[in-house]
């Protein structure tokens, strides 16, 4: 296990998994920790990038009062061994032969499986991608520098950050939770028939998918992934 900090509260763990079979963008792994007394806790984490041989990446957001995430983000020693199973999931996935257009909508660390799609796309697909990512403050942006570079280099990728608490100076958008006009201005018109991937905390996913439905998107082309938290 190797670790690098992404934001003050999130880290990417690089895991060496023997005989990794490869995976699709959007799939996840289950990480199981076992305490000295035998107590076990298992959590699902989205894979953040295509596999590099047997090396896979997950990005873990430290949850307040979390049972597993603070340990993974702060305590797990480099070189430690953890139990990883996967890849899992066949619904919230993007395949390189899917042409798009694609709208990605993320709340906080819900960007992780969507980043796997963006990284997988580079160089192998020209499907037009748009990402709308909601964060509390600019400091909470995951992968910000890499996304800036990819918008310039990858072609056909647009990224917009939506701030719920504090926006950077000069941001014309009024601070606040995601709104219909965010998705109308920065997404695709429904008649382009985009596939929409929405990932984040349960409340965020409900809000964003309802906004997509209300603005005319086909429910059969909205795929969602929810995780706990506010």
């Amino acid at each position: 296990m190797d670790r690098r900090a992404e934001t003050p509260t999130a880290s990417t763990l690089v895991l060496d998994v023997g005989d990794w079979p490869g995976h699709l963008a959007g799939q996840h792994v289950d990480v199981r920790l076992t305490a000295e007394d035998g107590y076990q806790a298992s959590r699902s984490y989205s894979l953040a990038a295509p596999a590099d041989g047997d090396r896979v990446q997950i990005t873990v957001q430290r949850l307040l009062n979390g049972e597993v995430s603070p340990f993974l983000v702060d305590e797990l020693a480099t070189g430690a061994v953890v139990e990883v199973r996967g890849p899992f999931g066949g619904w919230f996935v993007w395949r390189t032969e899917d042409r798009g257009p694609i709208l990605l909508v993320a709340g906080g660390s819900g960007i992780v499986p969507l980043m796997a799609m963006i990284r997988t796309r580079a160089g192998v697909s020209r499907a037009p991608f748009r990402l709308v990512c909601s964060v509390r403050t600019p400091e909470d942006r995951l992968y910000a520098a890499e996304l800036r570079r990819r918008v310039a280099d990858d072609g056909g990728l647009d990224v917009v950050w939506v701030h719920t608490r504090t926006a950077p100076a000069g941001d014309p958008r009024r601070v606040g939770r995601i709104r219909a006009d965010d998705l109308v201005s920065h997404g695709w018109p429904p008649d382009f028939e985009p596939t929409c991937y929405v990932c984040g905390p349960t409340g965020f996913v409900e809000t964003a998918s309802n906004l997509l439905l209300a603005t005319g998107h086909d429910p059969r082309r909205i795929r969602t992934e929810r995780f706990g938290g506010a």
Partner: protein
Amino acid sequence: MDATYDGNTLAGPLSEVFTAEVTSGVARCRSCGRSSVVAELAVYGPDPGLVARCPGCAEAMLRLVRTPDAMWLDLSGMSLLRLPASASE
């Protein structure tokens, strides 16, 4: 109360039981008749077990509990489960 997760998180545990990729399948709620992709069910858990509820009527469609020596799977809230014929994953 908001669900903790959705059906995507069932993929790992159910892979111990089924060879097909169940979360891409479609389940019909025994209570209200609504058909949902398993990945879109509202899932509560993980302790003491996972409970997947219908997004329409909130009735429990699947319960999965693990004990040290067994896995308990209750599908009595489903009247039908349609699974993809050849799971590629």
